[in-house]
């Protein structure tokens, strides 16, 4: 429940044992390698091994691509909720079968490429057939362009140019020409003109005025019908080939698992190769450097004792903290909040882990915003099923846990607000027994009738939340020896806060007592402290601007921050109201025409659809707004982010996972 303490590892190992060591370390999964420091002596004597990382990378992506292609041609049939297959470390480190898998991947890729090219060829042939359509009635070979004395012109004119018009135009140029109309469609008229050789140029000039477009068929021999028939034949043979290639890929689908395993094996090799790239070597010895969590040092020691190596672990000096990778150690409850920290940014090394601080507030706020027994039960059920069936790890595990805890909080808050799918118990009871005086489920407070209370309650929770952040910030400052910082930055705010609370109690509850003066005095002291604190590090006129800046920022910042918590009330109310309207609409048919099969069916349909939508929207909406309260308002008070995630050398395949 803290940031894991890291130690810097320096390691020298006999070069012949390097690969074996990396294989042992990937199984252990707790060492992250980094670049060697610059200050190593005699750096000029050290070399890097030739890297095979690039080659491995391209092989790995070829395998992944092949699996994706397989998935596209033959979708895999697997149960909806299934956890990935588990294998042991030996299986993943075994590199046999790689060549087979690579050639399999190549076959699949080639077949896919051929299928694509066939697609292009097919559309070309189809275009040819399309362009031949108007010329099918012409039984003259298309590649004849004339005789010794005559020329053949093929072309089209817009349909509005009639054959008579064309005839007239031709007659004006020459008498030694003949026009044949081949066909016509909605847009154009397709014509064949035979004329004397000498008249061709003049004729073309005259025809251009009538928008005549000449057409030629390069590379085609025989009549249009013959050409079209040839293309149709090509099309069908292409289709047969495509089908054959497709069948070839489909036949390989049974070897999908083999490909997947090979891809994950390569991924492990790639990870080891990348770690190995960071090492420097002499002829006999490899030098490596990295990070290991302090709690794993013993395990590492027993592993390294089996190798010819020299090594040391040391705590990083504070100056190196920005380089230290960060890993959070969580228990079952706080692990759920990794969802939030991973998405935002990890804390810097040497600061606090926000998860345990955030967990109670995040879950409570989520519950308040959803606040419905029915929705809570749905969330718990979904989370439990997913945890059992998917056996999630890492990010998905955090998600399922968060869903579970959020569900529990939602159900608990639902009990307090008396919401079960909004107000369905009340509606149903009153439907079946109109004379009933039952007021609905018991509730401590209801967002609808006590909306003011809920609004102020939300803001009080907000104050608590923000103050927790400030306490953390103050404690951290004191720990780091900055007592003055804690006194002058957090101190004045607390004095003002206590003053403001006293004033509020005084005004609302017991007016006109001595409290009034104490409160005012506290407020004044607080503001003075704030002014002094802000100006203490500035010089000259800077003191004044810093002081006014502090007043302005504190006033607007706190005002905005606290008001922001009103979203808790807003979401709580909105979810309930929308649900209630769906319930009312769902029950209307039954109210209007009595309870029977049809009205009950209508009830079920409207109820299920409406609540499914409301549920989905609230599930996401509450998460986003809870997130905002944590990341913006809460983290703003104390969090220093920017930690680099700890990425140890370990198995990280896409398809199978290693047994724990």
């Amino acid at each position, binding site marked *: 429940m803290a940031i894991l303490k890291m130690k810097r590892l320096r390691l020298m190992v006999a070069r012949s044992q390097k690969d074996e060591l990396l294989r042992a370390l990937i199984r252990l999964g707790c060492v992250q390698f980094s670049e060697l420091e610059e200050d190593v002596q005699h750096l000029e004597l050290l070399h890097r091994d030739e890297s095979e990382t690039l080659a491995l990378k391209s092989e790995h992506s070829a395998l992944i691509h092949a699996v994706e292609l397989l998935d596209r041609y033959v979708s895999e049939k697997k149960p909806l909720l299934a956890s990935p297959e588990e294998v042991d470390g030996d299986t993943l480190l075994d590199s046999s079968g790689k060549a087979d898998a690579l050639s399999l991947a190549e076959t699949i890729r080639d077949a896919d490429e051929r299928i694509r090219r066939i697609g292009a060829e097919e559309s070309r042939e189809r275009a040819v057939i399309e362009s031949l359509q108007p010329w099918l009635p012409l039984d003259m070979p298309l590649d004849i362009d004339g005789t010794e004395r005559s020329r053949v012109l093929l072309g089209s004119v817009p349909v509005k140019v009639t054959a008579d018009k064309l005839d007239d135009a031709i007659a004006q140029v020459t008498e030694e020409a003949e026009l044949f109309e081949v066909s016509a469609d909605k847009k154009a008229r397709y014509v064949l003109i035979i004329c004397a050789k000498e008249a061709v140029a003049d004729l073309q000039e005259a025809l251009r005025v009538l928008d005549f477009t000449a057409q030629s068929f390069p590379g085609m021999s025989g009549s249009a019908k013959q050409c079209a028939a040839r293309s149709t034949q090509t099309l069908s043979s292409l289709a047969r080939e495509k089908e054959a290639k497709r069948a070839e890929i489909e036949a390989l689908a049974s070897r999908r698992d083999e490909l997947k395993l090979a891809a994950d094996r390569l991924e492990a090799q790639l990870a080891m190769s990348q770690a190995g790239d960071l090492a420097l070597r002499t002829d006999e010895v490899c030098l490596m450097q990295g990070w290991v969590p302090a709690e794993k040092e013993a395990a590492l020691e027993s592993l390294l004792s089996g190798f010819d190596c020299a090594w040391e672990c040391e705590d990083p000096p504070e100056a190196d903290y920005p380089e230290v990778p960060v890993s959070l150690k969580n228990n079952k409850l706080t692990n759920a909040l990794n969802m939030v920290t991973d998405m935002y940014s990890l804390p810097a090394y040497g600061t606090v882990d926000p998860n345990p601080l955030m967990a109670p507030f995040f879950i409570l706020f989520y519950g308040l915003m959803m606040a419905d027994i029915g929705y809570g039960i749905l969330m718990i059920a979904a989370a439990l099923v997913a945890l059992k069936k998917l056996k999630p790890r890492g990010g998905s595990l955090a998600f399922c846990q968060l869903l579970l805890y959020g569900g529990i909080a939602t159900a608990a808050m639902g009990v307090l607000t008396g919401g079960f799918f909004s107000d369905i118990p009340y509606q149903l009871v009153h439907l079946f027994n109109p004379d009933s005086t039952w007021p609905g489920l018991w509730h401590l407070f209801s967002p609808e009738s006590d909306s003011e209370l809920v609004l102020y309650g939300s803001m009080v929770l907000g104050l608590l939340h923000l103050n927790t952040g400030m306490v953390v910030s103050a404690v951290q400052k004191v720990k780091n020896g900055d007592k003055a910082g804690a006194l002058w930055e957090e101190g004045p705010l607390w004095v003002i806060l206590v003053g403001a609370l006293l004033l509020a109690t005084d005004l609302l509850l017991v007016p006109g007592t001595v409290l009034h003066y104490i409160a005012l005095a506290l407020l004044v002291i607080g503001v003075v402290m704030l002014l002094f604190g802000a100006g203490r590090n500035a010089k000259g006129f800077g003191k004044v601007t810093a002081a006014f800046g502090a007043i302005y920022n504190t006033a607007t910042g706190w005002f905005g921050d606290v008001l922001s918590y009103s979203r808790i009330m*807003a979401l709580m109310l*909105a979810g309930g109201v*929308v649900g209630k*309207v769906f319930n009312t609409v769902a029950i209307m048919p039954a109210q209007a025409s009595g309870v029977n099969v049809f009205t009950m069916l209508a009830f079920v349909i409207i109820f299920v659809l409406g609540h499914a939508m409301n549920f989905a*929207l609230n599930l*996401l909406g509450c998460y*986003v*707004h809870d997130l905002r309260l944590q990341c913006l308002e809460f983290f703003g008070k104390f969090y220093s982010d920017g930690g680099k995630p700890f990425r140890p050398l370990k198995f990280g395949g896409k398809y199978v996972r290693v047994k724990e």
Partner: protein
Amino acid sequence: MEFLNTIGGGALALLGAAIAAALACVGSAKGTGITGEAGAGLVSEDPSKSGKVMILQVIPGTQGLYGFVIFFLAYLKVSGSIATLSVAQGLQVVSACLPIAIGGLLSAIAQGKVAAASINILAKKPDDWSKGMIMCIVVEFYAILCLLASFLMLNAIAI
């Protein structure tokens, strides 16, 4: 005032309910429309993403629903007494309906644009599409606030 009296409070109240539903629904239609257009382009390239496109498309649809919720509550409130409603009461209902009518109309369109842009995320970085969804939900909050403002005002009107 004389003129308003000739119209009557009932008609005014119905006018309020009508704009709540109509404007918010127009906004949602426009919002889902913008997203749908962008989504259709993606689905034509990659039909397997149609499920996620649909989720993004329905997000700007909620404003119409909120508008309908307020319409429904306003309608239930006045339906029994349309003939006897005073002009003042009628105008109260119109005022109560305004937030979701205007807020729903504009926020749905704004959200539609975000959702349409999120289709790009889905196309280029499919693993990160949920981040686009989160951006859409940020816009949603203002529609929720409008819904609440309308709801609280409607609740406060005595008829």
